[in-house]
C-alpha cells in the first residue's frame, strides 16, 4: 500500500467505523430497535424534503439537528429545539405517538402547544407513514447533548397557553385529500407543497396573528426582510413565464436561465430541494403551475415619468453591464430582470434588499458558481434606489407600482439590523 494512498483508504475506514458507532448507539436506543434500513433511507430523504436541518441546526456550531437557531416570528424570536435522539435534551425519550403529535398536531409530549414557527399547520397533512419514516431516520443521527432555551418571546406571547387560541383560529388538522380529478403527479406535487415542503409557510400571505390568509395560497409574503414571491402561475408576479422545467431546474440547481436563488430560498435549495428527486421536483412544478393566482394586470408607468427617466439613467450607468440593456442578464449567472418573479411583486421588499445590500446566490453541485449582486446602498440614495427599482418594475413589459422614496428609506432602515 503506497503511503500517499493511505489517507483516502483511511477515510473510508473512519466512515465505516462511524457507521458502526452509530449503529451501536441506535441499538442502545429503544426508538431505533428493529432497524429498517429502507425506512431510514426514506426518512433521510423526507427529512431533506422537509428541510428540518435548516431550522434545527445551530449555524454558529454547525451541529446538525442539535437546535438553537433563532427563528424570527412576527411576535418575537423562538429558538429551534434539539431533535437529535439525546435522551435528556433531545427527543430520544419520545414515543412514536409523541413524535406524531408534535409534527401533525402541534402538541408536545406534556400536552402543551408548539409555537407555529414549527410548521405543524402544514405537516398535519402528512401521512403517518412519512412521520414514522422521519422519526426512524432522526433516531439514527448522532445524539447531541444541547439544552436549548426555546421560548424567547416577549409577554404575552411567551405564554404557551395562548397558542391554543391560535390553534383554534388557524389550525385545521386533517390529512391530505387527493384530488381524484388530477393526475398522480399533480397529487404528489400538491402533497409535497402543502404538507412536508411547507412552501406556504413563507409564500402564503398571513393575517395579523400569523395565520395563512384564506384564498391567497402561495401568492407571496414578506418575512425576515425578504419577500417570498408569488409562486402561483400568475403571469406577472408569479411563475407564469416559467416552464415546469424552469421551476425544476431552479429548485434542483438554485439557478435556471432566468434567475438564481438568494436569501432564505438559497438555503432551502442547498439543504432541501437540491437533494430531491427529479420526479418530486417535477410534481411540485406541475402543481405550482396549476395554481392560477390572481392574474391581475398592473398598470405601467409612463416612460416620461420623472422617476422612470432618472431610473433609466441609473440603470444604464450601473446595472446594464451585467443585466444587459434588455434586462436579460446572462443565463445561470446574472439574473434576468425581465423574467424574474420577484421584480413585479406588490411589495418590492426583496428587490430593495438586493439593491441596498447585495446578495449571494446558492451554490450547488450542479451550479457551483454562486455569483453575487454587489451592494449599492452606499452609493445610491433613497430617491435613486426608488427610481431605479421603479424603472425595473415598469420596463420590458413590466407593470408594477412605483417605489416611493419613503418606501426606499423605510427599507433601508429595516435592513440595518439585518447585515448580510
Amino acid at each position: 500500500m503506497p503511503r500517499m494512498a493511505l489517507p483516502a483508504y483511511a477515510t473510508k475506514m473512519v466512515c465505516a467505523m462511524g457507521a458502526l458507532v452509530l449503529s451501536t448507539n441506535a441499538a442502545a436506543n429503544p426508538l431505533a430497535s428493529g432497524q429498517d434500513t429502507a425506512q431510514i433511507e426514506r426518512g433521510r430523504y423526507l427529512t431533506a424534503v422537509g428541510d428540518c436541518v435548516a431550522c434545527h441546526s445551530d449555524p454558529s456550531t454547525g451541529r446538525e439537528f442539535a437546535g438553537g437557531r433563532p427563528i424570527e416570528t412576527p411576535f418575537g424570536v423562538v429558538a429551534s429545539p434539539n431533535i437529535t435522539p439525546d435522551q435528556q435534551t433531545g427527543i430520544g425519550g419520545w414515543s412514536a405517538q409523541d413524535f406524531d403529535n408534535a409534527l401533525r398536531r402541534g402538541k408536545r409530549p406534556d400536552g402543551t402547544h408548539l409555537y407555529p414557527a414549527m410548521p405543524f399547520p402544514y405537516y398535519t397533512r402528512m401521512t403517518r407513514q412519512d412521520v414514522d419514516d422521519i422519526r426512524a431516520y432522526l433516531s439514527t443521527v448522532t445524539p447531541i447533548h444541547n439544552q436549548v432555551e426555546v421560548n424567547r418571546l416577549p409577554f404575552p406571547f411567551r405564554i404557551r397557553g395562548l397558542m391554543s387560541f391560535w390553534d383554534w383560529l388557524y389550525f385545521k388538522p386533517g390529512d391530505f385529500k387527493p384530488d381524484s380529478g388530477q393526475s398522480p403527479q399533480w397529487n404528489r406535487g400538491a402533497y409535497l407543497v402543502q404538507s412536508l415542503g411547507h412552501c406556504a409557510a413563507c409564500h402564503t400571505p398571513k393575517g395579523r396573528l400569523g395565520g395563512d390568509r384564506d384564498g391567497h395560497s402561495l401568492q407571496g409574503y414578506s418575512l425576515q426582510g425578504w419577500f417570498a414571491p408569488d409562486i402561483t402561475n400568475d403571469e406577472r408576479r408569479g411563475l407564469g413565464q416559467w416552464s415546469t422545467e424552469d421551476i425544476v431546474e431552479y429548485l434542483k440547481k438554485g439557478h435556471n436561465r432566468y434567475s438564481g436563488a438568494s436569501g432564505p430560498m438559497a438555503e432551502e435549495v442547498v439543504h432541501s430541494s437540491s437533494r430531491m428527486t427529479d420526479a418530486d421536483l417535477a410534481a411540485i412544478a406541475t402543481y405550482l403551475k396549476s395554481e392560477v393566482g390572481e392574474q391581475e394586470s398592473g398598470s405601467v408607468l409612463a416612460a416620461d415619468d420623472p422617476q422612470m427617466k432618472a431610473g433609466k439613467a441609473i440603470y444604464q450607468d450601473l446595472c446594464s453591464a451585467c443585466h444587459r440593456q434588455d434586462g436579460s442578464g446572462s443565463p445561470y449567472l446574472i439574473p434576468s430582470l425581465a423574467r424574474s418573479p420577484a421584480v413585479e411583486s406588490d411589495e418590492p421588499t426583496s428587490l430593495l434588499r438586493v439593491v441596498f445590500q447585495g446578495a449571494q446566490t446558492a451554490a450547488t453541485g450542479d451550479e457551483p458558481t454562486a455569483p453575487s449582486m454587489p451592494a449599492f446602498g452606499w452609493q445610491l440614495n433613497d430617491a435613486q434606489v426608488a427610481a431605479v427599482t421603479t424603472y425595473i418594475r415598469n420596463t420590458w413589459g413590466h407593470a408594477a407600482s412605483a417605489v416611493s422614496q419613503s418606501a426606499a428609506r423605510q427599507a433601508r432602515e429595516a435592513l440595518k439590523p439585518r447585515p448580510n
Partner: protein
Amino acid sequence: MARKLPSKDVVIIGLGWTGSILANELTDAGLEVTAIERGPWRDTATDYAPNFAQDELRYRIRHELFLRPDQTTFTFRNKMSDTALPIRTWGAFMPPNGVGGGGVHWNGETWRFLPSDFVLKTHLTQRYGARFLPPDMTIQDWGVTYEELEPYYDRFEYLCGTSGTAGNLRGEIQQGGNPFEGPRSRPYPNPAQVQPFSHALFAKAATGLGYKPFPQPSGNMSQAYRNPLGVRLGPCTYCGFCEWFGCANYSKASPQTTILPVLVRKPNFQARDNSEVTRINTDSTGKRATGVTFVDSGGIEWEQPAEMVILAAYTIFNVQLLLLSGIGQPYDPASNQGVIGRNFTHQTISDVTSFFDNTKFVFNPFIASGSIGMCIDEFNGDNFDHGPHGFVGGGYMGQVQTNGRPIETTPVPPGTARWGAKWKQAVRENYLSALKPGTGVHGSMYSYRDVYLDLDPTYRDRLNRPLVRITMDFHDNELKQNHFLTDKFAEIFQAMGAREVAREYRKGPYDITKYQTTHLCGGAVMGTDPRTSALNRYLQSWDIPNLFVMGASAFPQNAGYNPTGTVAALAYWSADVIRNQYLKNPGQPLHA
C-alpha cells in the same frame, strides 16, 4: 516553538493559478489538501464589485491588489559590482498577493509557447551554430516538449474559456489564426472577441504589409461560458479595467471564476489565508520535506506537517523559500555552480505611440478588454531567419491597447510641453485619435550567467528574513532584438495612416522603475541535468522528491509571449504525473 497542526497529505504554498489547479487535481485524487496563502481571501462581489472596481487611482496607481513593499520587498542592482538597494515602490513588475494571485489582476492573455521554444538551445545551435550565441548566454532546453504539453494547454484553455481563433488545427493551418503556433488538438472553446476600430485597423494594415494578423488569445469571454468544472463566466463588457484590476463582471478567467467555487465545496480541501509560509521543513537526511512553517496574521508561528509539499508562489518567492529552507545548491555566478537563483529572466518590452488626424480617426480607446488586440507572430522566437541580424529571440507584436483610462492615457506628440495649458490642449486633441498599445512589442529575454537571484547580505523583511537580491541588466542581444522589432512595429502604424509615430525602444540599463510586465521567470528552472536545473521535467525537486515547484520560476529562459498559458500547462502536466505515477510510489524521484 511552532504549534503543530494535524498532518495533511499535501500542503500547497500559495493559492493562485497553480495552487488552485494542483489543489483541485489532488483533491480529485482523494488527497487531503491544505493551501496556505500569504494574502487575503478575495472574491468578486466583495473585493472588486462593478460599482467600485473601475477605480484607476485605487487599483492602478495605488496598487490595491498587490503586495505592499512593507510586507516584503526585493533589493535590486544591475551589475554584480553594484550594491543592491531595496525596492520601495513597485515599478518594473507587480508582485501579486492574495487568493487568486496574479490570476486576479492579469489581462487574460493566454498564449502557448512555440514548439522550438522548449528545445531552444538545441534548435538555435542546430540552425545557426553554437558560436552564433553570446558566450555568456545560458539558455537550455526545458526537458519537456510542446507535443507533451499540448493536452495540458488545451485543459487550461477549456478551463478558462479562452476566446481565440485557431491557427494550426492538428497540423492544418487555419485562416485568421496564428500560422506559427504549434498544432492544437481542437479549436479554442470560445470564438475570438470582437475587435474595436483601432485593433481592426492594425490588422488591415498588417495584412497589407504581407503579415498574417490574428486575434490575441483572450481570457476575457466573447460569450457566456460554462467550463468543464461547471463554473460559469459571463460575456466581457469591454470596460477597459482589466489588468491591475479584478474583473467585476465574472468575465475574466481567474481562479475565482473557474476553479475556486468547486474547490471550496470539497470536504478534503482547506485554505488558510493571511498566513505566510516562512520555511519548507526537511527531515534529518535533508532529502524529504516534512511540511512547512508559517506565520499567521497575529504573528503566531505554526507547523503544518504534510506528506508532500507543492511550492506554488510567485517566481521570486519560490526562489526565496528554497534559499531560506536550504533546499538545492544556491547559484554562484563566479564559479557558475549551483542552481537556485540561476537563469533568472524578465521580458523585453517596447512600444510606439502613434498620432492620427483627429478629424478622420476616432478610436474611442476606452472600449477594450484586457486581452483585446490583433497581433502578428512573424518576428517571434525563431519564426524568422536571425542570421543576417546578429541576435536571437523575438516576440509577438500588436495593437493590444487595453484601455483609455484617464490618469494614464494622456498621449501627446514628442515636443509637446510637459504641463500647463499647451499640454492640456494636446491631450484634448489626441486622446481619441492616438494609439498606445502598452506592451506592443512583447519580446523574449534569454538567460545569462550574470542575471540571477540570491539572498541580500544586508536587508531583511519584517520577519527578519533576508530579502531576495535581483541582479539584472539587459544584454546586447535583447537590445538589438528590441530595436529590430520596434522598427517593424512602427512600420505597421505608419501603414495605418498615422501622422506621426514615436518609437520608444527598450534601452539599457534595465530600469526597475519602468513597468514592463509581471513576467519574471526562472531561478528554479526545470531541465534534464541536476547541475543546471533545480527541477526535473515534472517540476519535481532533484534534491527533495516530495517537493514540486510550480510556476514560471521553472522557465529556463523567457519566450516572447505572456507566460500564464505555459505556467498552467506545466501545472496540469505535473499534476497528471503526480496522480498517475508519483502516488504509486510516493517520495521517489520520477524518471523520464
